[in-house]
């Protein structure tokens, strides 16, 4: 429900500095807002517009195109179940159906306790591990009904689910919704080559001197 915090604003400036045009940073910044609040608030979009010099309407225009951006709060755990062709062939639709019954909600909705949102999603590039799902974008492979129940049970009890988790260790841990990578890129000041300004035309030195 808010603008970016001072710490996040500093991160935003670092991201913006890597692009010749500020607006290029918009999608990463929308993710930053979503990481902060769990969703993208109107106030955050106004703030992002100020940061990259575009109107809030343009920020909304970009934001509304991409399905990962939620403009209202979702469950603490966003469960994305793939039903696309490879998963459909091996029971993805039945898994989704089971999930809907187990949680008592239809895909696209959130449980009353605010814990789970289910989505019926398109291919998530794990087709050989079908049927599969992600929880806050952490993968679970070859998921059967019982596995789904175990994952939900663990999350309800504040435990990290391990059954059918694709990764172990910190990378397999499920963060709050909105957090994607566990590591950000940082370009050290003494190592930065600098942006290639589209308005300053000159051949790269390594070509000229070759």
């Amino acid at each position: 429900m808010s603008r970016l915090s001072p710490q996040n604003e500093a991160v935003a400036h670092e991201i913006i500095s890597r692009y010749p045009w500020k607006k290029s940073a918009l999608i990463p910044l929308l993710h930053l807002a979503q990481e902060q609040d769990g969703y993208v608030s109107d106030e955050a979009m106004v703030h992002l517009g100020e940061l990259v010099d575009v109107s809030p309407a343009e920020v909304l225009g970009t934001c509304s195109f991409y399905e990962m951006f939620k403009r209202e709060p979702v469950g603490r755990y966003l469960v994305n179940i793939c039903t696309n062709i490879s998963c459909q062939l091996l029971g993805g639709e039945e898994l989704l159906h089971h999930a809907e019954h187990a949680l008592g909600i239809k895909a696209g909705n959130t449980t009353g306790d605010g814990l789970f949102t289910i989505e019926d999603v398109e291919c998530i590039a794990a087709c050989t591990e079908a049927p599969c799902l992600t929880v806050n974008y952490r993968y679970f492979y070859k998921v059967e009904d019982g596995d789904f129940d175990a994952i939900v049970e663990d999350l309800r009890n504040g435990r990290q689910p391990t059954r059918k988790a694709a990764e172990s260790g910190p990378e397999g841990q499920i963060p709050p919704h909105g957090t994607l990578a566990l590591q950000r890129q940082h370009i050290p000041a003494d190592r930065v080559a600098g942006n290639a300004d589209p308005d300053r035309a000159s051949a790269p030195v390594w070509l000229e001197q070759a």
Partner: protein
Amino acid sequence: MTAPIVQLVTSRLHHADSYTLARFEATGGYEGLRKALSMTPAAVHDEIRAATLLGRGGAGFPAGVKWGFTPPGVWPRYLVVNGDESEPGTYKDRMLMERDPHQLIEGCLIACYAAGLSQCFLYVRGEMALAQTRVATALNEAYAAQYVGRNILGSNFSVDIVLHWGAGAYIVGEETALIESLEGNRGMPRLKPPYFPAAIGLYGKPTVVNNVETLSNLGGIIVRGSEDYKQYGSESSPGTRMFAVSGHVRRPGVYEVQHGVTTFRELLYDEQFCGGIRNGNALKAFIPGGGSSPWFFEEQLDLPLEARPVGGAGSMLGSGAIVVMDETTDAVKACLRVVRFYARESCGKCTPCREGTSWLETILQRIVDGHGRPADIDMLLDVGDNISPGPYPAASWESEGLAAVPFPPKQTTICPLGPSAVAPVVSALRRFRPEFEAKIRRRALGIPVRVEDSTHV
């Protein structure tokens, strides 16, 4: 006899720490970069051109030729790495980014050096959190070790690689939409011409767009040389290619095989690969190159995994994604599911795709739900013809006297997404029309069916 297995691009993946700089350096990593820097940029470009490295993102265009399309004397030029992998059935780029990010970084550097690209943007699909983590970590390591950034390894070659990440939209994988998205906009494709990225790309400047797997091959090619590289694969498709085989095979998985040599039959049936159809079932159909490709059948199994013969036979190798359906598959439901994907992912910029894909979904859905009408089959084909006029690419069916219609389809749309939605419709209708008719006939009989609390007639 099946061509021997060679691992060029997946060679490190069996190591548990394959994604670390230490493992990369211990297994010949950044040797390709060092060797490239000892050569002139033009010589590096020639080497890649000579290797005929075909693009692995879908269109299969040779990378060395593509780099040469940037207009001379126009600066700066950019590299945009396509890591948006979202074509149904495709799983290889995520694996390469998560498990060998340095190999990709090395490839980006070699491309920038050879083609004079001044800045690189590495666009990772939004949903791929682990790939983003691993690429960010690898970039941080590579900057610290002088492999990326200013004066790389003490040379006058300087380039930044900027990690960028998306937010969920299949269409952004299309190269001009990728560029729009990278400029912070809604990811809608641009018209070609004039917006060929090589001429007018990112920020209106010449831009090379390459796929993750394409770039991941560069280090190895430079180290071994194009001559050595070409001992693998076929003459027109050298090297290897990664294929994700999913669906009803005994061992679904991602396999690296010799390009243009290994056949579909070998990949699907050999013990060293997928080991045949599950439960000893019969094969019904397979999608050879991702959701966008027309379906193949038993008769096409002996084709090599090579663009030209596959295109002539009516489909495409596309994104290296083979989806296998056995005899238990409901062809109408499978067709609906693929079509629904394109209907959902249509960006809405042009009418035949925006309206057409939704109508295809609506009609197929009512057939599956038991409300199909006898005219629906013709209507499906008619809607398809509005998106892709003329005969749509399809596999031959000898016993029925049907010849193959070669790839690609014609299009009334801005990009190939719209025509992709027609592929499953034409494929399934041509081959499994009785299944559609049976579903429609069931309604025509007029048996009232009680579904929970509503009555459908």
